[in-house]
């Protein structure tokens, strides 16, 4: 967005405003994306469970994108919030408060509180300290869930989570039809909110912090407060994703806190690309399809292939890949009148 090379001050101001409002506007490509999602929901009735899984994973990856792609915080323990959300929703349902919306809201609240509390730890120190603290928080949460077996069921998990009808109208059915529509709706609503957030002045200030915290601070952006806010929001999102998983699968087990879950969601986001919100969604679909594909070939060694993909992605320089994709896709989109689609932000590969 190099718009400052215009001659007059007024015209440069106008073009800044224009380019900023470009970010808000909906583009045809985005509409097409969501139409495809809805079509998939109706065209693949035998795949409701898969769609539901993808929606939950996409929401989880979206929450990590807010933290990593926009605030630039590398987290290895994002499953802490996912797991907390899952257990909060699961336990509420088991205690008789079975309204799904209530479950989502309380899960979001609890996870956001945990995010707020731990964000102050994450602010301190270098990248490495952040890694360690996020990893440690994830492990501590897993350990708590493991030890508090009277509450969480320990290694057996929470079974028989039976949420009531959504909004008092739609009951969950055994085919997962309602569940998958519900998950996609929640994903869509939260995506709208995230889109609003990252395109607001607040979101732009996050991008500034991500790219250069020192300069952002010099511009008068309250760096710490913004990072705390972003981390809290991201945690709340992850909590909702966990709650969705608990409600739609009607089961919560200790593996919601697993380190592998934090690593998987990182991979999902990396596959899709960070910093433009759709990365988590595209990545989740690609990840699950890939998982199915590999599972049909070699069912046992899925993890090996995940590892290989990660290594290759890094060696192939994912930031350059993202630029390449952008360069190849944007003329195509431009011709279709969708030029703004790829403009949500810059890939965060340049962060140091």
């Amino acid at each position, binding site marked *: 967005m190099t718009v400052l090379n215009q001659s007059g001050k007024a015209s440069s101001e106008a073009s800044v405003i224009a380019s900023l409002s470009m970010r808000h506007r909906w583009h045809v490509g985005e509409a097409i994306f969501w139409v495809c999602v809805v079509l998939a929901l109706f065209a693949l009735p035998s795949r409701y469970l898969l769609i539901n899984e993808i929606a939950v994973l996409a929401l989880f990856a979206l929450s990590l994108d807010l933290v990593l792609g926009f605030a630039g915080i590398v987290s290895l323990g994002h499953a802490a919030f996912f797991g907390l959300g899952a257990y909060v929703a699961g336990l509420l349902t088991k205690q008789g408060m079975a309204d799904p919306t209530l479950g989502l809201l309380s899960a979001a609240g609890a996870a956001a509180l945990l995010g707020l509390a731990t964000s102050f*730890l994450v602010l301190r*120190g270098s*990248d490495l*300290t952040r890694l360690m603290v996020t*990893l440690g928080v994830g492990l501590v949460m897993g350990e708590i869930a493991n030890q508090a077996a009277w509450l969480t069921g320990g290694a057996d998990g929470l079974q028989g989570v039976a949420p009531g009808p959504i909004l008092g109208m739609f009951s969950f059915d055994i085919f997962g039809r309602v569940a998958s529509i519900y998950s996609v709706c929640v994903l869509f609503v939260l995506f709208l909110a995230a889109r609003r957030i990252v395109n607001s002045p607040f979101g732009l200030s996050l991008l500034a912090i991500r790219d250069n915290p020192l300069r952002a601070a010099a511009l008068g952006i309250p760096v710490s407060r913004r990072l705390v806010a972003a981390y809290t929001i991201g945690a709340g999102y992850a909590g909702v994703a966990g709650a969705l998983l608990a409600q739609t699968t009607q089961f919560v087990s200790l593996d919601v806190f697993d380190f592998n879950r934090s*690593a998987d969601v990182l991979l999902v986001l990396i596959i899709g690309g960070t910093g433009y919100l759709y990365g988590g969604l595209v990545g989740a679909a690609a990840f699950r399809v890939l998982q199915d594909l590999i599972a049909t070939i070699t069912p046992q*060694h899925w*993890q090996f292939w995940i*590892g290989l993909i*990660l290594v290759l992605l890094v060696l192939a320089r994912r930031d350059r890949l993202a630029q390449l994709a952008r360069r190849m896709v944007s003329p195509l989109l431009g011709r279709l009148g969708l030029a703004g689609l790829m403009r949500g932000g810059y890939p965060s590969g340049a962060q140091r």
Partner: protein
Amino acid sequence: MLTILYDGIAYGMLLFVLASGLAVTLGLMNFVNLAHGAFAMAGGYVTVILMSRLGMPFLATLPCAFLATAAIGLALERTLYFRLYTRSHLDQVLFSIGLVFMASSGVDYVMGSEQQIIKLPEFMQGRVDVLGVSIGIYRTFIILVCGVLVVALQLILSRTRFGSRLRAAVDDARVARGLGIDVNTIFAVTFAVGSGLAGLGGALGAEILGLDPTFPLKFMIYFLIVVTVGGTSSITGPFVASLILGIADVAGKYYVPSLGAFVIYSVMIVVLILRPQGLFARPR
């Protein structure tokens, strides 16, 4: 009581040998290598294979474990790792997690997922009573070996020409190059030795820590704790940190087993809040 202390010291010494390579790559070279545990696992499996397939005695397999993992480390450093020294931490994290996943499931594929058992030679088994304290012979052996290694490492880093070159290369690679120091070779050798030490630690520790394909992930957090808590300015910081961690872990598991691994994670988080640069580092 004293027995627990002694076991804790042995455990801590072992952790130090396992993590010392990481202390250099992560601490000094600022490379986030989460795959360090994979090298330790490789060392453990070298010992297992040599003992069970070729019937070598346990002691003779230890140098082999060191050399084999050092060779693997050298090969990986020259082919893959060196490309990533200048990349962002996120890239390094993704890359090394990928390596861990590949190593874990690769070993699972070749060796099976079960716990590997290492049969110690007769004279290393058992315990003796010294002044009323029950002391494991194998643990004494570990303490001796690791103690020698600690002293040797400290001397190499602080007294030899190689050590001063390494410190120079780490402080400012460009200036070091300008002074005619072959930075690439120094990093490669350091990385290889660090991997080799991890392999040796894995071989020594297979009996105490257990050895299965989940080893790299299970102990990743321990290694990282040693390095981050110990700080990165010297080798003594990580050494003290691993002793504390070893004693705390053994004592914690003995006295309050219900809390499990909770204690060490919490201690780590508290230390990192209070001293983000590590316990023994001077704030930069």
